[in-house]
C-alpha cells in the first residue's frame, strides 16, 4: 500500500546477504581452512614427554654400581600463590625469607601464569618432610626427576658422569632434545644408547591456565617410554673399592682382569673421586674444584698414561727369543754391567733365573741375538730386519696396537718400528747398539697399564688373551663377539712354563725381586718393573697373576714416584689378589703399611 513497500526487498536482501556472508565464512573456517584445527589443538592439548628410566649398571655380582633415584623439583605458579604463610614455607624449604621473596619475584618475572622452578633436585629424604605439607601452600607443586646415584661410591673414572646436551650433540644425534641429559664420560657415555631408552609422549587436554584435565583421545596417540636396558659390568665392586682404598695418597693405577674371559675386574686411577660428586647440581661446583686440583684427580691414569714398561718387558723378550730360537731355556749369559747397569746377583744360567733376578745384561744379550740375527752383512740392514721381527712379536702380545676396549680415551703405547728409527736416525744408520735400551723396557718403548694387565693375562693363559672389556652382559642383548674370541700371540705355549717358573721365583723364592707379594695360601706369580723417570723418583711397576695354576685374576699395578717395583707395587697387587680370592687379609701389618703410605712427592710446576 505504501510506496515504500519495495524497501522490504532491500531489507530482506540485506538480511540474506549478511546471512550468506556468514555461511561462506563458516564454510571457510570449518571446512576449508584447516589451520584452526591445529590452532585448537595447540590451545587445548598439551604434549607431555615421558622420560624412560635409565638403565641400571650392575657389577659382576649384580650389585648396583649406578642406580636411579627420584628427586623432586619444586615448581610455583605465581598467579595461584595466595594467602600463604611465606615464613613457614621458607622455613619448610630451608631458605631465608629474603631468598623466598627473591625467588617469587623471579618466577613472576618469568611468567605470572606459567609454572617455573622454585627449588631444584630435592632429595627424596628431604622431600618426605616437604611433600605432605605442600597442600597447604597454594600454587606450589612438585615434579619428579630421576638422577643417577652411586650406591657404592666407587669407580668415578669408570662410571663417568652426565650433563645436559649441547647444541652440537643435538645436531649430531637428532634424537636428543634440549634439556635432555647425556652421558659425558666413562660407561655412561660408552653405553649411552643402550642405557638411555626411548622417551614417550603423552597427549593431554589442558584448560585455559595450562593445567591438564585429562588424557587426549584416551591415550590413543600416546607412546610409552621404553626403559633403558640394564647392563652388567665385569667389575667386582669390592675389589674396586679396596683398590681405591689402598691407592689413597698415591698416584698411579691398578688394572685387574679375569684371564679366562678378558673381563676387567677393576680399574683404579689414583687419586680417585666419588662419582656422586658429579651428579645433578653438584656437577658444576665439584667439577671445577676437581679440575683445579693440582694432583689432577679427573685424569684417568689407567687409560691415559703411558710409560716405559721397565723390566716387565723382559717377559716378552724372553718368550720371543725362545720362539725365534735364538736362545733356549737353558741359555745363560753373564751379568756384564758395562753393557747396561744391574744390581748385584749371581749370574743367570737359565731363562727362569734371568726372570727371577731380572738381570739387565742377560736381556741385552738376548735381544741383541733377536735383533741382530746376522741375516745381513750390514749391521744396519740386519738390525732393520731384526727389529721388524721383534716388533711383530711384541705386537702380537697386544702392545702398541689400537685397543678394542669398550671405553674411550685409551692411550696407545709405542712399539718402535724400522720406520720410527729411520725417522730419528736415518735409514740404515742405526743398529741394536743404538737402540739397546728397548731390551729392558726403556728407551722408546712405552705401554699403557691396560697393555700391562693384558700381558699378565697372556702369561696366566700361557699364550693367548681376550680383548679386555668392561661389559659382561646387556639385558636382552649379546656383547660383541670380538670379546669372545681368543687372540694368540706368536709364541707357542711350550715356551711359557719356564718364564712362568721365573715369575713364580720372583715372588716366592729367595732372591726374587717381589718377595713382598708373597702370600701363604695362594701362589702368586709376578714380575717387577721400575720405570725410569727423568723428572723425579722412578715409577714402581708390578704385574702378576694368581693362582699359578688355574689363574683367576691378572693384575698390573703402577705407582708413580715410588721407586722399586717390589717395594710398593708388589704388595698392593698381592693384597688385592688376596682380597679378591679369599675375601680376607692374612697380614694386616702389610695392609696397614700400604694404607698409611703417602707417596705423593709432587712438586708443583713453576
Amino acid at each position, binding site marked *: 500500500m*505504501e*510506496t*515504500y*513497500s519495495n*524497501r*522490504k526487498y*532491500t*531489507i*530482506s536482501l540485506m*538480511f*540474506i546477504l*549478511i*546471512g550468506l*556472508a*556468514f*555461511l561462506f*565464512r*563458516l*564454510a571457510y*573456517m*570449518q*571446512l576449508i*581452512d584447516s*589451520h*584452526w*584445527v591445529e*590452532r*585448537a*589443538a595447540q*590451545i*587445548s*592439548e598439551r604434549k607431555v614427554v615421558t622420560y624412560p628410566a635409565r638403565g641400571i649398571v650392575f657389577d659382576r655380582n649384580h650389585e648396583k654400581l649406578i642406580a636411579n633415584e627420584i628427586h623432586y623439583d619444586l615448581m610455583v605458579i605465581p598467579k595461584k600463590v595466595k594467602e600463604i604463610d611465606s615464613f613457614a614455607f621458607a622455613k619448610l624449604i630451608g631458605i631465608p625469607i629474603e631468598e623466598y621473596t627473591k625467588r617469587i619475584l623471579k618466577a613472576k618475572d618469568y611468567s605470572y601464569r606459567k609454572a617455573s622452578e622454585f627449588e631444584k633436585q630435592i632429595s627424596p629424604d628431604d622431600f618426605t618432610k616437604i611433600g605432605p605439607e605442600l597442600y597447604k601452600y597454594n600454587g606450589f607443586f612438585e615434579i619428579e626427576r630421576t638422577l643417577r646415584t652411586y650406591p657404592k661410591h666407587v669407580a668415578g673414572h669408570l662410571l663417568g658422569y652426565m650433563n645436559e646436551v649441547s647444541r652440537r650433540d643435538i645436531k649430531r644425534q637428532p634424537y636428543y632434545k634440549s634439556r635432555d641429559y647425556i652421558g659425558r664420560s666413562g660407561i655412561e657415555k660408552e653405553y649411552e644408547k643402550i642405557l638411555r631408552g626411548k622417551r614417550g609422549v603423552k597427549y593431554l*587436554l*589442558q*584448560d*585455559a591456565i595450562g593445567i591438564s*584435565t*585429562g588424557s587426549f583421545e584416551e591415550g590413543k596417540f600416546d607412546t610409552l617410554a621404553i626403559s633403558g636396558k640394564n647392563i652388567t659390568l665385569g667389575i667386582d665392586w669390592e675389589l674396586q673399592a679396596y683398590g681405591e682404598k689402598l691407592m689413597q695418597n698415591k698416584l698411579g693405577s691398578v688394572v685387574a682382569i679375569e684371564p679366562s674371559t678378558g673381563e676387567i675386574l677393576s680399574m683404579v686411577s689414583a687419586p680417585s673421586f666419588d662419582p656422586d660428586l658429579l651428579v645433578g647440581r653438584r656437577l658444576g661446583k665439584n667439577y671445577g674444584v676437581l679440575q683445579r686440583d693440582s694432583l689432577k684427580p679427573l685424569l684417568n691414569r689407567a687409560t691415559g698414561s703411558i710409560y716405559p714398561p721397565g723390566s716387565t718387558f723382559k717377559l716378552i723378550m724372553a718368550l720371543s727369543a725362545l720362539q725365534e730360537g735364538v736362545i733356549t731355556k737353558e741359555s745363560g749369559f753373564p751379568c756384564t754391567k758395562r753393557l747396561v747397569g744391574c744390581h748385584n746377583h749371581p749370574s743367570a744360567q737359565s731363562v727362569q733365573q734371568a726372570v727371577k733376578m731380572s738381570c739387565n745384561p742377560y736381556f741385552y744379550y738376548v735381544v741383541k741375538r733377536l735383533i741382530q740375527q746376522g741375516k745381513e752383512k750390514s749391521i744396519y740392514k740386519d738390525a732393520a730386519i731384526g727389529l721388524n721381527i721383534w716388533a711383530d712379536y711384541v705386537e702380537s702380545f697386544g702392545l702398541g696396537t689400537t685397543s678394542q676396549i669398550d671405553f674411550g680415551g685409551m692411550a696407545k703405547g709405542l712399539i718402535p718400528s724400522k720406520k720410527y728409527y729411520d725417522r730419528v736416525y736415518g735409514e740404515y744408520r742405526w743398529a741394536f747398539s743404538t737402540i739397546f735400551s728397548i731390551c729392558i723396557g726403556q728407551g722408546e718403548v712405552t705401554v699403557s697399564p691396560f697393555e700391562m694387565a693384558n700381558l699378565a693375562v697372556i702369561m696366566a693363559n700361557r699364550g693367548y688373551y681376550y680383548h679386555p672389556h668392561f661389559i659382561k652382559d646387556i639385558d636382552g642383548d649379546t656383547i660383541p663377539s670380538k670379546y669372545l674370541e681368543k687372540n694368540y700371540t706368536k709364541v707357542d705355549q711350550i715356551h711359557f712354563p719356564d718364564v712362568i717358573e721365573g715369575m713364580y721365583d720372583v715372588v716366592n723364592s729367595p732372591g726374587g725381586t717381589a718377595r713382598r707379594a708373597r702370600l701363604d695360601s695362594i701362589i702368586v706369580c709376578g714380575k717387577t718393573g721400575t720405570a725410569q723417570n727423568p723428572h723425579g723418583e722412578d715409577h714402581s711397576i708390578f704385574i702378576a697373576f694368581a693362582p699359578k695354576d688355574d689363574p683367576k685374576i691378572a693384575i698390573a699395578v703402577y705407582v708413580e714416584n715410588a721407586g722399586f717395583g717390589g717395594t710398593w707395587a708388589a704388595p698392593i697387587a698381592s693384597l688385592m689378589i688376596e682380597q679378591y680370592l679369599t675375601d680376607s687379609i692374612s697380614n694386616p701389618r702389610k695392609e696397614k703399611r700400604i694404607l698409611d703410605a703417602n707417596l705423593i712427592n709432587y712438586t708443583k710446576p713453576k
Partner: protein
Amino acid sequence: MSRGKSIIGDVDWGLILIYLIFVSLGLSTIYSAVYEPEHAFLFDMSKEYGKQSMWIGISLFLGFFILLLDGSFIIKNSYWVYIVTMVLLLLVLFTKPINGARSWFGFGSVGIQPSEFAKIGVSLALARYLSMKSSITKKRKKKSNTQLTLANYITSTLQAIQANAPILIILGIPSMLVLLQPDAGTFIVFTSFILVLYREGYAGNILLFGIVSVFIAVITLLVAGNTFFLPFTKVMLSGKFGVFLVILFLGLLFYFVIKKLIQPRERKTLYKALIGSMIISIIFINVVELGYSNILQKHHRDRIDLVLGKMEDPNGKGYNINRAKAAIGSGGFSGKGYKQAKLASANQKHVPEHSTDFIFCTWSEERGFIGSAGLVLLFMTLLIKIVLIAERQKSRFTRVYAYSVAGIFFYHFMINIGMAIGLAPVIGIPLPFFSYGGSGMMSFSILLFILIKLDAERKVILQ
C-alpha cells in the same frame, strides 16, 4: 474495537515453533557449556542451566500471558511501557557499578538488565508514534525544480529534523542513557531502528549514505597505516592519499558517465552532486583517520585492528577472538560431538564467556558446520519470517513493531555471530534465546510474543 476470535486464532505457529527450537537448542548448549558431573540435573539451580530453565519457564509464562491479552491493550499502553523502561534505565545509573558498568539491578545471584527491556519500550513507543502520524514529510518530491545546492540541502534536512523530533527523542533518550552506563554494545543495537525508519520512508539516502560511509571508513582504516610511492615519482604518501586518488579516479569515471549518458539539462545538478560527494568523501576520510588516531582509545583501536586483520596476536589483545575462532574452526563438518568440545567446554574453558556472549562457539565446536550453518539458516528464517509477518499487516503499528523486532534480532545475530567468527569487533551482546541470561531471555521472548499476539489479530482491523 472487536475481540480476536480466540487466543489460538491466527497465531503463527511457525514462529512459535522456531522460538521453541531456539530455546531448547540454547538450553542444551548451555548445559554442555557449564556441565558439572556433580550437578548433572538439568534444573539444578546452582548451575546456569538450572537458572536458564527457570528463565525459560518464566518467559513462557509471560508469553502465554501476553497471548491472553488484547492487542489493543498492548497498543494503548505502549507509551507507558516506554516510560517505565526509561525510568528503569535512569535508576540503574545510580546503582553500584558491576565490572565497571552500571547495567544491573541485582537480586542475590540473579539480576535484571533494564537495557534489555528498554528495547521493548522503544519498539512499542516508536510503533505507536509512527502509526499515529498521518503522513511523512518528504523532501524529495520535486526532483527537477529544487536546485540541489548545499544550502538547500542543509535547510531541508533541518526542516526534516524539526518535523520528526519525536522520533529522535524516542530513540535518543534510551541511547544516551545506555551510553552513560556505559554499554557500547546496547547503544549500537539502538541504531538498528534505522531499519524501521527506512522501511517507513525515512532515511533512504541516509541508509545508502551510511553504508557507503562505512565502506569508505573501513578502507581508510585498512590502508591508513601503510605508505606507498606516487607512481612515476619519488614522493612517498600515506595510505589515505591512495584512497583520495581512487576517489578522484572514480569521480572522473562518473564524470564521463554523466557526460555520455545523461542529458545536458540534468548534468549540472549531477555534476554538483558529484563534486559535493567527492569533497564530502575526502573530508570524511580525514575525519575517520583523525578520529581513529586521536579520539578513539587504544583498546578500541586494537579491537578494530583485529577485525580488519591488521593485528595478529593469539595470546594478547585478540585472545578471546583467537580462541573463539579456533573453537568454531576446529568443529569441522559435523563437530566434535555433544559435550565433546575441547575449547569452549566446561572443564577446559579456553573460550571465555562461552555460555553467554560466545555461546555460538560452544554450539559450533560441538555441532560443526552442520550445526553452525543450520543455526545461521534458522536465524535467517526467523528474520525473513518476521519480515513476511510485517508485510502482511494492515496495521501500521504492527508493521513498524515487527520491523523493530526484526532489526533488534538482526543486530544481535549479526554482531554476536560476526564477533565469534571474526567479522565484527568484540562487542558484548547476547545471542537471542541462546545465550545464558534472564533479562535477555525474558525480553526477547516478550518482544516475540507481543509480535505473535499482534500478528494473530491482523485480521482484526484496528487502524
